[in-house]
Structure formats: structure tokens, C-alpha cells
């Protein structure tokens, strides 16, 4: 059975907005943020994300697992990909570097002011984006997933599929936990993975195969069950709930569109918003 994220009604300000307006705001904000590498602009968007987050009434306890996962990904992305190697940086960072320090042994490594500043910029950028989206599963009523996607222009079937797909994530997490327990009961210990990467992957098979197979089999059964209740009919579907935009929703969408347009024009026409390092840091 598909389960839902840990949603509960909180009577927060964020929940008073139409879910379509919230999605449009989040998606357009994402496209806006990726237009900037200037930390001054990014700090503005981080502020907007923080304001939204603070209006959700979410507690640390509820979200800490999700944040831990995000921090882990950020660490990989920023520390490894930006600081240790420069593979994840942009050309502005490597074009005219100012060396902060350099070592020859045990490996040759040079740290530049630009690379360090880029890492900080990345942190702000990624945090702005993740903070926008992390609130969605906790603050959006799962009953409205389908109608929200339908209301954003998707067809009936695709909208319901999106609804199911959204609920697939927590379902997978639950199945993973159950299989993990079942294999632990057979003396299996994930912590003791030994050998090279291939051996480690092979040792994950007792977890990954049952979880994958269970998902496939449940998926097949679910498709059959849906077809037996007329899901494959070609006629028009009725959605149980209806959504209605209010003034505040229109205002939110208008704001998102305007900011996106500005974010497209600024870097391309006025060359503003590109990678920026504070001048006082440059020797």
C-alpha cells in the first residue's frame, strides 16, 4: 500500500494558499535562483525561503531526517565537488584565481579565494532551493496532490500518476525499513560491508532486490486494481475536490512570474547576477 508523507494540518499561513499557487511559486523560484551566482541576490532568495519556512510551523523534530539527508548531499556536492576538486565550479571561478594557499605533498592542492567563495555561494543557493521544496510534503494535504497537478494542466491520468509517484517515496522508505529488519533477523549487518565497491554493491542485494521486486509487484497489482475500478476508461474523470484561486494566490503567482522575468533579463541584458567575490577579499 502506498503511504503518505507525515502531513498533518497545522493551520499555518502557508496552508492557506492554493496548492497550485504554491507549486508555481516554488518551481518558478527554482528557475529564478538558478539564474544567479551572485551571493547578494541569492541571500535575498534564501531570505524568502526562510520566511516561507517560518510560516509553516514545522518543527526540527519533524524535519530532521530530511535535513540530515540534504546536509549529506550538500557535503558531497560542495565539499567534494567544489573544495576538494573544482569539478563542480563554473568558468568564472577558475578563470583568474587568487591563491589562498597551496601544498605539494602528499598531493598537489591549491585553494583559491574564488573557489572558497564559490562554495559558500553554493551553500546559499542549495539551501534556498531545498528550503523551498522541503516544506511541500509536510504542509500539503495528500488528498489534493492529484487535483493540484490536474489544475496545473496535466491530463487526468498523468495527474493521478503524479499523485501516486509522490506517495511512492515514503512507501519506498517504509519497505526499505521492513526489508532491513527482515534481513537483520537473518544475521545480516549493513554496517559490516567489506571489500571493494563491487563487493559492497553485491552485499546490498539482500536489501535492494526485495525492495525493488516488492515495488514492481505491488505496482502491477495496483495497476490491475485501478483498471478493475475503471481507471482505464477513456471518458472524463471527476475529481472529488475542487480548488479555487484567491487574490493572495494570484499575487503569489504574479510575484513569481515577475521575479523570474527579472532574473532572466538581469544577467543577459545588464550582465548583473553572475559570480561575484567581495572586492575586499581580493589582495
Amino acid at each position, binding site marked *: 500500500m502506498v503511504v503518505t508523507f507525515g502531513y498533518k494540518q497545522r493551520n499555518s499561513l502557508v496552508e492557506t494558499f492554493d496548492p497550485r499557487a504554491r507549486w508555481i511559486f516554488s518551481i518558478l523560484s527554482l528557475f529564478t535562483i538558478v539564474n544567479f551566482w551572485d551571493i547578494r541576490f541569492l541571500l535575498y532568495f534564501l531570505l524568502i525561503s526562510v520566511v516561507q519556512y517560518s510560516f509553516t510551523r514545522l518543527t526540527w523534530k519533524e524535519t530532521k531526517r530530511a535535513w540530515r539527508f540534504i546536509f549529506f548531499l550538500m557535503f558531497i556536492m560542495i565539499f567534494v565537488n567544489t573544495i576538494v576538486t573544482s569539478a563542480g565550479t563554473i568558468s568564472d571561478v577558475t578563470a583568474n584565481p587568487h591563491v589562498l594557499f597551496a601544498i605539494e605533498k602528499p598531493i598537489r592542492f591549491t585553494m583559491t579565494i574564488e573557489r572558497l567563495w564559490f562554495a559558500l555561494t553554493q551553500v546559499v543557493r542549495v539551501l534556498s532551493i531545498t528550503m523551498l521544496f522541503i516544506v511541500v510534503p509536510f504542509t500539503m494535504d495528500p488528498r489534493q496532490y492529484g487535483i493540484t497537478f490536474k489544475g496545473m494542466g496535466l491530463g487526468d491520468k498523468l495527474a493521478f500518476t503524479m499523485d501516486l509517484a509522490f506517495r511512492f517515496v515514503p512507501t519506498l522508505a517504509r519497505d526499505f525499513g521492513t526489508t532491513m529488519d527482515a534481513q537483520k533477523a537473518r544475521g545480516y549487518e549493513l554496517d559490516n560491508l567489506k571489500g571493494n565497491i563491487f563487493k559492497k554493491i553485491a552485499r546490498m542485494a539482500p536489501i535492494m532486490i526485495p525492495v525493488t521486486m516488492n515495488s514492481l509487484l505491488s505496482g502491477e497489482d495496483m495497476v490491475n486494481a485501478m*483498471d478493475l475500478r475503471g481507471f482505464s476508461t477513456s471518458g472524463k474523470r471527476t475529481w472529488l475536490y475542487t480548488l479555487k484561486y484567491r487574490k493572495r494566490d494570484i499575487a503569489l503567482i504574479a510575484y513569481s512570474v515577475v521575479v523570474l522575468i527579472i532574473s532572466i533579463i538581469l544577467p543577459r541584458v545588464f550582465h548583473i547576477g553572475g559570480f561575484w567575490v567581495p572586492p575586499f577579499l581580493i589582495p
Partner: protein
Amino acid sequence: MTDAQPLVVRDLSFQYTRRDTPAIQSLNFTLNPGEILLLAGSSGCGKTTLIRCINGLIPHAYSGTLQGVIEIFGKSIQEMCLAEISNEIGTVLQDPDRQIVGSFVLNEVAFGLENLGLPREEIFQRVNDVMDYLNIGFLKDRETFQLSGGEKQKVALAGVLAMRPRILLLDEPLASLDPASAREALSIFRKLADDGISIILVEHRVEDVLAIHPEQVLYLEDGKQVYYGDAPGLLECVDYSQIKLPATIVMERSRGTPMEPFTSSLQGKDGEALVEFEDVHFRYKEDLPEVLTGVNCTIHKGDIIAILGHNGAGKTTLVKHALGLLKPTSGTVRLQGADTRKSSIAQNAHTIGYVFQSPTQMLFAQTVRSELAFGPENLGHPKEQVAQDTEWAIKTVHLEEEMDMPPLALSFGQQKRVSIAAILAMRSRILMMDEPTAGQDYWNYMAFMDSILQMPGFDSILFITHDVDLAVVYANRILLVDKGKIIADGKPHEVLAEEERLNQARILPTSLLKLNLEKLPLTGRFMRAEALAQFA
């Protein structure tokens, strides 16, 4: 509307594309308005295939060669698309978890009606009507994944009934229900039939279904129609070792050849304490209610314990504590004197073998042989011993011929037996099984329970079950669980004689229990119906 019969099946055969033999052969039967047809037979006899032929999943979702005629209200099913069929026929699948798609009960019940494109007002009206009919209106705003097994089954049924089908196909609807929930479900089915719906009810629990007087019975063996007629006729002709019949009938029929009472290799004599629960409380999350509300009990060497209780009583949660899969919120669980908080699950697995409820959550290997070797190898058993134990384990569950097959290619019943064998091969001192008979046919589960309980090497065996007769036949101690507490703990003839306690735990006395209680002054212990024949 037409006066034609709801369902006519003539000379029906079907063979799946990748199989060498037909799944069903030359089936003939009819179904009249308001009739219940009980479809019985052991695992793999073709029951599910027949259901798929009738509801249109064959050939729409499963390919193969279909021969013969199926007519729904006079119209050949071949002339109907799946949507048309689903307007006339509602199907409730065996596992409601795999049928329910809505996140909340209201959405789930309305799902089919939304697909039909009915006006919103009519959807709400029909949803309210069907929920009132099934007395589940109070569940409307609940999340579906938080429902108990019985509630899920009713919600799945409501979702189908809301579409107002004239034929209902129920595929083992009692499989995951406690006895009281099963009885409620059965009385709903009878009421539906009396209101004019034609029902095909696939069920292993034949004895339970007979209580609602099905008008017809179709009994299949290896895809062939062995019996088609009324219920009393089935009781006369069918092999009582294959399907569970009322105890009085079995006792009567085995009078000439009574069986010796079953004796286990384990004898409960207050041996050494293996697992101790001391005022154990547990809740899954801080903001959720307690699931265990103060459990005190000790599992001793020699115990064969059956844990009985309703859906959601806390049985599985209790057993998971013994292995350390869950740690108490307060209180202590000790495994052989050691606090389970201080040891890893893998360490505890040396002592406790725990068979999970669903086999699909653990099977992964390329062959049954390597699946069985996985546990003992993790525990560091020597190679020769692993080979020996896997052979013994597979024989115990009667799957020797499947040893080199991929476990995931086996039927659900066979997978369940592989999952049991995988734990048996670990040679743990304590064996714990969660619903070991779920999805199994009667002959198979009785056979492997006999083998397991007669096998030396276990210090204690514990099983969770909804099957009261399993407890009657095999247990030497019963734990009754209700609302996270043990409300009765004692010998079977003591615990199961207290009707008030049984009602509290939603347990219903079966014909075998009643017969055993009646004969107790003569027998001195509980036994199966075939053995009671010598006291008849």
C-alpha cells in the same frame, strides 16, 4: 436490465503463455442473482486464474490461450472492454494493501466513481450510502495506511460496492482478518447476496464460509472441477486432509481410521527462562498512542506458544521486541538474561529465528538453496552444516523439487514456505513465526507445522495466528493479547475455555475448540478432529 443469468461459464480453459499446462480446464458453472458460490481448492488449483478470467484481467493484463464461454448477463465477455466489465463486476483482491490507492478513506471509496465521471454530488451521496451500509462512516477522514486489517478490507469492499456492481468477486477476503472481523465480513457478504448481488467467494477457510450458507460450491483440484453442487455435498466427498471442514464432520468421517494424538518434541515444563518481558511499554512515535501498554511475561524452554488477538492488538510489535527489532519505550526485554537494548539484532538472531509475515520482504537470492544458506552463513555456521541444515529445512516445508528455482518465481504460498525454511536453516534455539499459515492451503500448513514441531533442536516455538485451530492443535501455552496487554496466559484448555476473554480478544470458538472442550474430560488435552474420533 435483462433477465439473463448474471454469470454463465461454459467449458472454460486457460493456459498462461509461459506455462506448459493449463491453469484451468473445462470449467462449467452458473451463478444466479443473490447467490453465493464458494470457490475452494488448495493453492495453485486455479482459483485466482478463474477470477481473472471473469473480471477481464485475462486477457487484458495476462496473456495466454483462453477457450470456452463466459457470459455476463447474457453478453459474452469477449465483446466487453475492461471498463464495461468493471461496471458489472466488482473485484476485491486478497490483499487490501495492494488494492487501496487512495490516501484517505473517502478518496479510496470514491476512486471508482471519479473514474466513471459521475457528478460530484452523486459521488458523495454514493460514498455516504455505502459507508453507512457497511457501518464504516466513522472512518471517512482516516488515512488508509493507518487502518487495521479488518478496516482495510471493509474500505476496499466499500470502494468496489460504491460502483454498484451486480456481481462481486472476493478473492480470499478473510486471509488477513481476525476471527471476529472475518465473521463480520462474512455476514456483510450474506447481506449483499440477500440484497440481490451475486457473489463468488474464493476462500481457504471453508468452515467459516459454510456458516453463511453459500448456495453453491465449486471445488477445484489442479485446475479441474472436482465438485460442483451444494455445500452438504462437498462435506461428503472432499478429502478432509486437503481443506478444513467442520470438526464434527471430520471426526465422523475418520471414525474408522482415527489418528494418534499429535506429540511435539517440545514439552512445556517451566524450563529455563529464555525471553523475559518486564513491564514493557512501547509507542512508535511520541505523538502516537502506546501499542504495548505494560507487558509482563516469560518465555520458557519447552513452551509452544500461540499468540492470539485481534488485528492491531500489538502481537507483532510484542514479538519484534524479543529479537530487538524494536526496543521498549520503557521497561526491559531480556534475551537469555541480556538486555536487548545492549545487543545487536544480528547477535540476537543466533538465538531467535523470526519468520516475518510477508515473504516478499526478504527473498532475494538466485536459487532457493542460496536463499536458505544466507542466514546460516551470516551467523558463521560451517559450510557442511549449512548444506545439511538447508536440506533439512527444505524437506520440512516440502519444497525439495524447487531447490534450484529462483524463489521469486514461486507462488506466494511456496514463497512463504521458503521464508520459513530460510529461518529454520539458521537452527536458532527459539523459533518465532508471524502468521505462518497465511496464504497457505490446509494440507501444506498442517504438514509443515507437524514437521517443525516434531523436529528436535528448538528450545521454544512461538507463533502469531488468527487460526484458533492451529493454537488448539499445536500450542501448549496461549497468550491472549488485547490493546497492547496480555489479558490471558496459560494452558490452551484453560485460556480458550473462557468465553468472555475470547470475546474481548475478538476470538471466536471454532467447531474444533468446542468439540475439544466437550471431550476434555475424556481426552485430558486438546487434539485434532481426526484424533478425537477415537473418543467419539
